[in-house]
């Protein structure tokens, strides 16, 4: 499955707890109050476990997690680097 869709599904299901929620790929996940400190940590764990992509500490930054587009793009780069 496309990573962006999988991430969107995860966030809707586990973070927003509403699978039918509207989540735009460019929506700011922090401004919208979707991600908080614990949700980011859970999301990192979800990505590492499901996509088998290691996220170094220094990459857990706002700019990589701000929205689905940024996150998917970061994961593409990271996967290619691995």
């Amino acid at each position, binding site marked *: 499955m496309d990573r962006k869709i999988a991430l969107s599904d995860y966030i809707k299901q586990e973070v927003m707890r509403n699978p039918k929620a509207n989540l735009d790929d460019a929506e700011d996940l922090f401004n919208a109050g979707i991600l908080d400190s614990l949700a*980011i*940590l*859970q999301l990192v*764990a979800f990505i590492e476990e499901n996509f088998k992509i290691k996220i170094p*500490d220094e990459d857990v930054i706002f700019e990589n997690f701000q929205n689905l587009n940024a996150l998917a793009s970061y994961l593409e780069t990271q996967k290619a680097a691995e």
Partner: protein
Amino acid sequence: MVKKLLYLNGLAVLAVVLNHSLSWSYISLFWWTDRYLPVSVPNFDQLGSPIYYLFRFLEQLIIFAIPAFLFVSGFFLAFAAGRGQSPLRWNIIFVRLKNLLIPFFIWSVIILLMDIALGREVSPAEFLLVIVTGRAADPFYFIPVLAQLYLISPFIVRFARNNWKMLLLVTGAVHAFFVLLRYPPLLNLDIPFLEPIIANNRHFLFPSYIFFLTLGMVFGFHSSEFKEWLYSRRWLLLGLTGAFFLLGVIEWEMILKASGQEWLGPSETLIDQIYAGFFLLTFFAFERTELPLPRTFNFIGAKSYGVYLTHTIVLIITAKAVYHLIPQLLGLPLLFLLMLTAAGVALPLLLMEIVNRSPLRRYYALIFG
């Protein structure tokens, strides 16, 4: 390090539940003694017994809990500010406050309504004051503290980024000063010129907690710089953690003796704060060490706010049920403690799971954060 934060959060919320279970266990030792022994209460015969010291050691061990929550919050604030020089956006702060305060208000009202149903008289003004100052339940003071710290955090961020040593020095000094103000009342000391500050040094105000939030922020911005430094000093840090743990136990016994009281309610001292600081540094210094039960702690860590808000009600009901229905259990303090702690963690998790699987799921975040 980032991935250990969820584990730390899980560990911290378990520590909070254990801490409040210990409070009930002290009640069973000293104020409910007549339910299992032919004595009048309060009865302090068990003060100084092996079980008392076991409880004191446990109580001392888990003092890192609130500092750990503050550290994780500080780390998030650094994350939310981003890597450039951009300021922390107020919108993020307000959204975070909304997610923090709505569940807090809901559970504060529920607990106060329970109190009123049990006969407590509360005027509307007092009702509001109790909620705003986080006094609906013992652990709730932390939420107003965290809200205040969130509100001042945009002013701190740039120092955490660019001038972190000075920031830690200043916030450490402020923190230590306000913690030191707790000593005179404990020791019955009269210091007239400090009296106005001491009288207003309430536990729901942020100054005596600020250091751990700024420490989390500084780690958030500079963690890669600290990793090797911490790793190379991990055994020294572990030793210092152990030393301050023991000093904290001894200090409290000395304070209790010097106060001339038979019993003092818990109050965290400067030694406790230093212990908590070394505990956090040690936790990250051993980052490369595999910790036990990572899935369990991460799971609990992810649900920590819901457990934090609801465990008090569970503990009250469980402790009072034991008092009335099986008072013999109060005479087995370790078993009573284990039972309370297990109930204080398991029942909130069960309640959260029930809500998660019910039509109330869409309101989950409002109820449990």
